[in-house]
């Protein structure tokens, strides 16, 4: 003990002790500041197509974040995107290129943003508010009532533009500065109000909504400007176990794209009513809609007995009408379908077959389709569609054919793979480990 005291009192040893202390402090500082590292997983995806561009991308799943890169060529234009997504406390944060979307009632605002986007969702929950007297606050103490809260907040800011996308990649073009927010608050368990506000150089969005919902009934209304166009909408619905119905009315006023001015040039009001039900093996639905441009109705009846399913549908819209009879047989891995279509006086028979297993998927269909863009004499065309899929370990490959509106067959092939990387991926300081619950794109 004396020896230790002697050592500590030695001026040379004091110098070593301070050096050790400073090294310790430096190590603690590095642990706090330097990012942690963990094993990462890389998802590679890519594909080629005769109609939707060629490209690919990768997603790096780090210890608490996701890093996205994608690039490709579509219509002879190069497009790319890069984004980092992570969770910070309750906030879902996206930095870089994100296809941000805010929904409110029937309205949907899509904002491809190159900047930052934040999302926070808090489910509706109640708690008892009990205040404890403190030295500063002695007026109110004890139980003061039940406090309930539930809300969701969406914020974005940066360069907002139009999105160029294909199944393999996406990019943002013609971007200009913009920002916006959406906030939805559950005032009670049955009543919700919300607002969407967004600004860009040319377009402005300001929407308000209210929603009242009980077990069987729901009434909601929205109104405001969606990208400079005035829109008003109301909807009421009722639903029970075997029967449901809805009715709604929407008004859209379209304006020219003048910044700061709203000039109505066209006004459309749509009324719609629908009823649907199902009991035991049978189901059915009917709906009508009416507007100052067009009117229409649809009727749908179906029945299902084990592996056998039959459905009959009828659509009328203005002067056009079509009838459809579909028969489907479904077993564990196999499915067969046949349907007869009668549209504008012409009848066609179509059939297809499919096989689905854990390793292999195949679907072949032979259809006669109506192409409204072709001359009337060639409007009905026979189409063979094929879809093939193959999965081996972490790798999946798919090939499919698609018919374009000019009745020409197009093809598309793609695939993706997951691989663990030997590299240690850096972690974002302060971010939570819940990044994996981010929605995959």
């Amino acid at each position, binding site marked *: 003990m004396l020896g230790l005291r002697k050592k500590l009192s030695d001026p040379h040893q004091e110098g070593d002790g301070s050096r050790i202390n400073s090294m310790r402090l430096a190590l603690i500082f590095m642990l706090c500041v330097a990012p*942690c*590292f*963990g094993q990462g997983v890389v998802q590679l995806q890519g594909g080629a197509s005769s109609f939707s561009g060629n490209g690919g991308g990768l997603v790096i*799943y780090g210890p608490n974040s996701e890093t996205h890169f994608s690039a490709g060529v579509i219509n002879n234009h190069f497009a790319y995107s890069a984004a980092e997504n992570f969770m910070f406390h309750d906030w879902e944060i996206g930095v870089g290129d994100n296809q941000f979307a805010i929904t409110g009632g029937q309205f949907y605002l899509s904002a491809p943003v190159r900047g930052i986007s934040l999302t926070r969702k808090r489910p509706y929950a109640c708690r008892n508010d009990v205040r404890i007297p403190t030295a500063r606050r002695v007026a109110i103490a004890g139980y003061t009532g039940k406090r309930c809260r539930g809300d969701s907040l969406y914020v974005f800011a940066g360069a907002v533009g139009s999105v160029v996308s294909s199944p393999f990649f996406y990019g943002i073009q013609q971007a200009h500065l913009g920002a916006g927010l959406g906030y939805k608050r559950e005032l009670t368990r049955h009543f919700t109000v919300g607002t969407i506000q967004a600004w860009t150089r040319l377009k402005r969005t300001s929407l308000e909504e209210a929603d009242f919902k009980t077990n069987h009934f729901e009434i909601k209304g929205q109104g405001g400007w969606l990208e400079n166009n005035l829109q008003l909408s109301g909807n009421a619905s009722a639903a029970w176990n075997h029967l449901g119905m809805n009715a709604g009315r929407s008004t859209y006023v379209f304006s020219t794209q003048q910044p700061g001015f709203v000039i109505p040039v066209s006004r459309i009001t749509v009324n719609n009513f629908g009823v649907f039900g199902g009991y035991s093996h049978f189901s059915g639905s009917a709906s009508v809609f009416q507007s100052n441009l067009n009117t229409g109705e649809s009727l749908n009846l179906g029945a299902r007995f084990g592996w056998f399913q039959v459905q009959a549908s009828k659509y009328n819209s203005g002067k056009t009408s079509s009838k459809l009879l579909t028969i489907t047989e479904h077993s564990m891995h196999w499915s067969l379908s046949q349907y007869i279509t009668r549209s504008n006086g012409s009848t066609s028979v179509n059939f297809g077959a499919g096989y689905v297993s*854990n390793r292999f998927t195949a679907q072949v269909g032979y259809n006669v389709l109506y192409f409204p863009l072709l001359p009337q004499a060639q409007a009905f065309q026979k189409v063979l569609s094929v879809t093939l899929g193959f*999965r081996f*370990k972490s790798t999946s490959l798919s090939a499919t054919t698609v018919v374009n509106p000019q009745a020409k067959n197009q093809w598309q092939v793609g695939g993706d793979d*997951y691989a663990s990387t030997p590299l240690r991926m850096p972690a974002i300081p302060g971010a939570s480990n819940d990044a*994996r619950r981010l929605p995959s794109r």
Partner: protein
Amino acid sequence: MKILILAAISFVGVVASAQTVGPVFLEGKIGKKPFKGQFLVENSTVHPMPVVIEAKQLQAVDGKPVFGALLPGTVVSLKDSSAVVSPRSSRVFDYEVRCEKNCVVTFLAGMSGGKNPQGINIRLWLMSSAFLCSDSAKNCRTRTKKAMGLE
């Protein structure tokens, strides 16, 4: 020592994962042919996930549910009893069940969940059950549970 503990806490990451098994139950009628069913195991993580399947039969002992080995008279055939489910994908397991009288066969899907910070292996068990009745498949689950005194 404190620094080592701090370093260990900093480097040990807990991966939030959510595996899914569905459907939770199927109802069928006992016939001449065995009852054919299937359930799906979904891996929502970005790592390959080994899965093992075990078939158990549910019985009521003194009004309490007990999972035990298959009883005599119950025949279960599983096409695959184990698999490695690829990242962010799913796998379907097909099975056939034959019973002489009303029965409940439960398929336990055991999924490896990695290790906890103390190094102990964690395995998650999720189940899909087949309720078979001799008279009709409709409401077989409710009737079986009532007969077993579980409701």
